[in-house]
């Protein structure tokens, strides 16, 4: 490191148009050796597109890229990798049916006598995970048998395994990690930074931006807003640059919450008694009241998603009972729940949420139509009316309701799924990580929406790995630890109390 200030990467004048949208318009960026640069912006700001151009997934319409002073043009991700640019994408792009070791070393397997040396490969993979990320798992098991967080760690390990990585791009790696895992990742990032690797870190967590980054580059609507030293810009300043509007509405939240808490009814819409599933979640009691938002807090793997799934009937409970509106539920299935007015917006948007080739309209009416059955088909006119209503209500950014939903950005896809469930007019709405991988502006919109839905008399369950968000949105908080309900807090509680409950009451 002769010159610590030297730029390792310069991108200038990058433009890229997709059919119907100018994704990037004359955007520039520079990255120094041994620096962590945060790339922030709302959904559709162009962050992912810019990274895809850098890594050779997409080709720019114009603009130049210099790596170490030499002009490059990555033709493919493989090419970019060989140049020293490694990436961990937002969505996990690994093979769930291969083992963890195979995923990490795919294409770079150690050989012995012309055959893959499995013992060495497993040892190498285990060691890489242990050394780089401090994760100790059985690397011979298929990747798909692990949680999303572990899969994310494996993806990072795979990218880090490149000995020659000059630049590491992390596209929202922390969106599915819990606090400890995030800290582990940050440790690794700092270590790599000290070794002179330039890191581009894309995240929606503002707290993390300030915790780890040296500089921040802000994009908005495909244009460069500016690059700032992290020390020189305040959070409020940064967020208003990202969303281009003031933050007063964030402060409104607590007032709205207080107002809406007056509307909570005393009788329970949904009552779970000794409800549980062996190996997933210990039997628990839970009452959901009309007009109330109940937050589920807990670390990853504490049983949050499992709780949501058995309440909805996506997985069948093996103990206890649940009643909705005072009626005991006998046949528990997603369709049955929809008919009873219970909806679940599942955690994994890509795998269990959107149907990517179907249009926005079809995605929105899907659950409603499933409820109506095969033959009572909504007329096209009704479908468009419903779709248009929710596109407006949730301000979904789409050129038309006939757009395949896969062409939308992550936040808008999430809104489409929300619309799908709102269209079924549920009484109980369970939201599992509804704001994951979504920009700040949309996050606030969704939080507000949840509160206004509660005000209308719905019971909401709000699950998020961001404790702050759970606190802000929920009237009552249920804490889960190691697949067991351990505490319940009503009214105003501070973050510390919850963290203590999550951690186990000690310290």
């Amino acid at each position: 490191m002769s010159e610590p200030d030297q730029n390792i990467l310069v991108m200038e004048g990058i433009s890229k148009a997709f059919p119907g949208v100018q994704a990037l318009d004359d955007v520039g960026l520079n990255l120094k050796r041994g620096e962590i640069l945060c790339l922030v912006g709302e959904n559709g700001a162009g962050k992912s597109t810019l990274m895809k151009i850098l890594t050779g997934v997409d080709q720019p319409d114009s603009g130049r890229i210099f790596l170490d002073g030499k002009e490059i043009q990555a033709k493919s991700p493989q090419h970019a990798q060989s140049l020293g640019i490694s990436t961990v994408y937002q969505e996990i792009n690994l093979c769930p049916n291969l083992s963890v070791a195979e995923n990490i070393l795919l294409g770079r397997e150690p050989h012995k006598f012309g055959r893959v040396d499995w013992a060495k490969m497993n040892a190498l993979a285990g060691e890489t995970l242990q050394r780089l990320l401090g994760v100790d798992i059985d690397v011979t098991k298929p990747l798909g048998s692990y949680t999303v967080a572990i899969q994310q760690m494996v993806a990072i390990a795979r990218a880090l395994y490149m000995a020659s990585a000059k630049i590491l791009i992390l596209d929202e790696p922390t969106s599915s990690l819990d606090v400890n895992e995030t800290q582990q990742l940050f440790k690794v990032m700092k270590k790599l930074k000290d070794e002179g690797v330039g890191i581009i870190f894309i995240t929606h967590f503002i707290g993390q931006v300030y915790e780890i980054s040296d500089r921040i580059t802000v994009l908005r609507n495909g244009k460069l807003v500016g690059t700032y030293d992290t020390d020189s810009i305040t959070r409020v300043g940064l967020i208003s640059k990202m969303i281009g509007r003031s933050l007063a509405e964030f402060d409104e939240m607590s007032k709205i919450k207080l107002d809406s808490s007056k509307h909570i009814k005393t009788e329970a819409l949904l009552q779970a008694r000794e409800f549980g599933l062996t190996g997933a979640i210990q039997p628990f009691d839970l009452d959901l009241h009309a007009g109330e938002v109940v937050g589920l807090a807990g670390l990853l793997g504490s049983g949050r998603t499992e709780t949501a799934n058995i309440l909805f009937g996506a997985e069948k409970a093996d103990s206890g009972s649940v009643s909705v509106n005072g009626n005991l539920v006998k046949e528990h299935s997603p369709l049955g729940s929809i008919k009873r007015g219970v909806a679940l917006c599942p955690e994994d948007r890509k795998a269990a949420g959107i149907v990517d080739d179907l249009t926005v309209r079809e995605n929105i009416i899907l659950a409603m139509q499933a409820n109506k059955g095969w033959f009572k088909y909504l007329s096209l006119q009704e479908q468009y009316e419903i779709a248009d209503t929710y596109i407006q209500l949730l301000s979904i950014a789409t050129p038309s309701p006939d757009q395949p939903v896969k062409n939308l950005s992550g936040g808008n896809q999430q809104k489409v799924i929300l619309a799908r469930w709102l269209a079924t007019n549920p009484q109980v709405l369970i939201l599992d990580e509804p704001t994951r991988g979504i920009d700040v502006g949309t996050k606030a919109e969704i939080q507000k929406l949840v509160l206004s839905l509660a005000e209308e008399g719905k019971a909401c369950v709000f699950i998020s790995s961001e404790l702050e968000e759970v606190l802000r949105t929920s009237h009552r908080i249920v804490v889960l630890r190691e697949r067991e309900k351990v505490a319940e807090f009503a009214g105003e509680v501070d973050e510390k109390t919850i963290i203590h409950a999550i951690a186990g009451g000690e310290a």
Partner: protein
Amino acid sequence: MRKSNGHSFTWKTFTESRLFLPLIALSLILLFDLIFIPGFFSIENRDGNLHGSLIDIFRNGSTVMLLAIGMTLVIATGGIDLSVGAVMAIAASVAGILMNPSALKNEVFFVTDPNYTFQPLWLVIISALFVAILCGLWNGVLVAYVRIQPMVATLILMIAGRGIAQLITNGLRVQITYKLFTFLGQGWIILPFSLYIVAIMFVFTWLMTRKTAIGMFIESVGINFRSSFYSGIDEKKIKLMVYAFCGFCAGIAGLVASSNIKTSDANNIGLTTELDAILAVVIGGTAMAGGRFSLLASMVGALVMQAITQSMYAIGVPAFALQAIKAVVVVFVILLYSEQFRSFIRKFSAPKTEAKP
């Protein structure tokens, strides 16, 4: 059939539609015929009925078209049905034995009376189709409820099916001479009668999938069955239904085929037609992984398959070489579908314009 927000029908919407490539493929083959086969397009009027090579493509293609209707739905759910050829044979055997049960007594006698049948026609047809639907349900249960991979699950019946068909007819070929039945495959009302069967099945299936929610559910299950499950769609029921329906289509195809050759030949009816049907669907642009489908495009796909066969016969390719030649032509057709090839075409067809908003 979607309301397009103010979009008019343009060349671009046509080239982007699912019908475009299959139609191009069909036109290329017909163009070949126009140049190399004199009289290919001549249609003659015999006693008010139309005959000619072009008509023959439709008539001989009718079994593949029938199969392609059911196969389209199966493939759209992400599955495949290899057993349709065998189910055709089973349906034909059931029909044959009900009209001419002599085989059960282990004697083959030729019924020469075209008005003789052991059981009335309606019972013959209903029984054969009932058995075909049972076959489809069997596939559906294996795929949807036992969770066997579709290719393996339907392979079972593909292999066992011809044995079952032989058991039904006691291992013999049953001659079919009953006039009303042979009309299915050989009759003519201006156009070949089998075409009307295809048309009715097509319209019925189109209405069933596009005027109810079934079509969207099939596509949804094929694209992402977990999302569909969370949305309350009974993915198992959908799969069971499409396999049963595919069996039903194969049953009808079996009746038409046996009527056409006046026997229920358990060994040869529908032999390798499952592959033609699958190719027809592929040429129609439905992805083997499931998802969006177009019945009309599959029909054109079936015609492409038949037109290739017909043209090869017409230029004198011997029957034994037919499969090889067919393979070569199919490779060229499939080439039209590759993304590389398409962008290559687009480069040349579209004038260069900068897209500036």
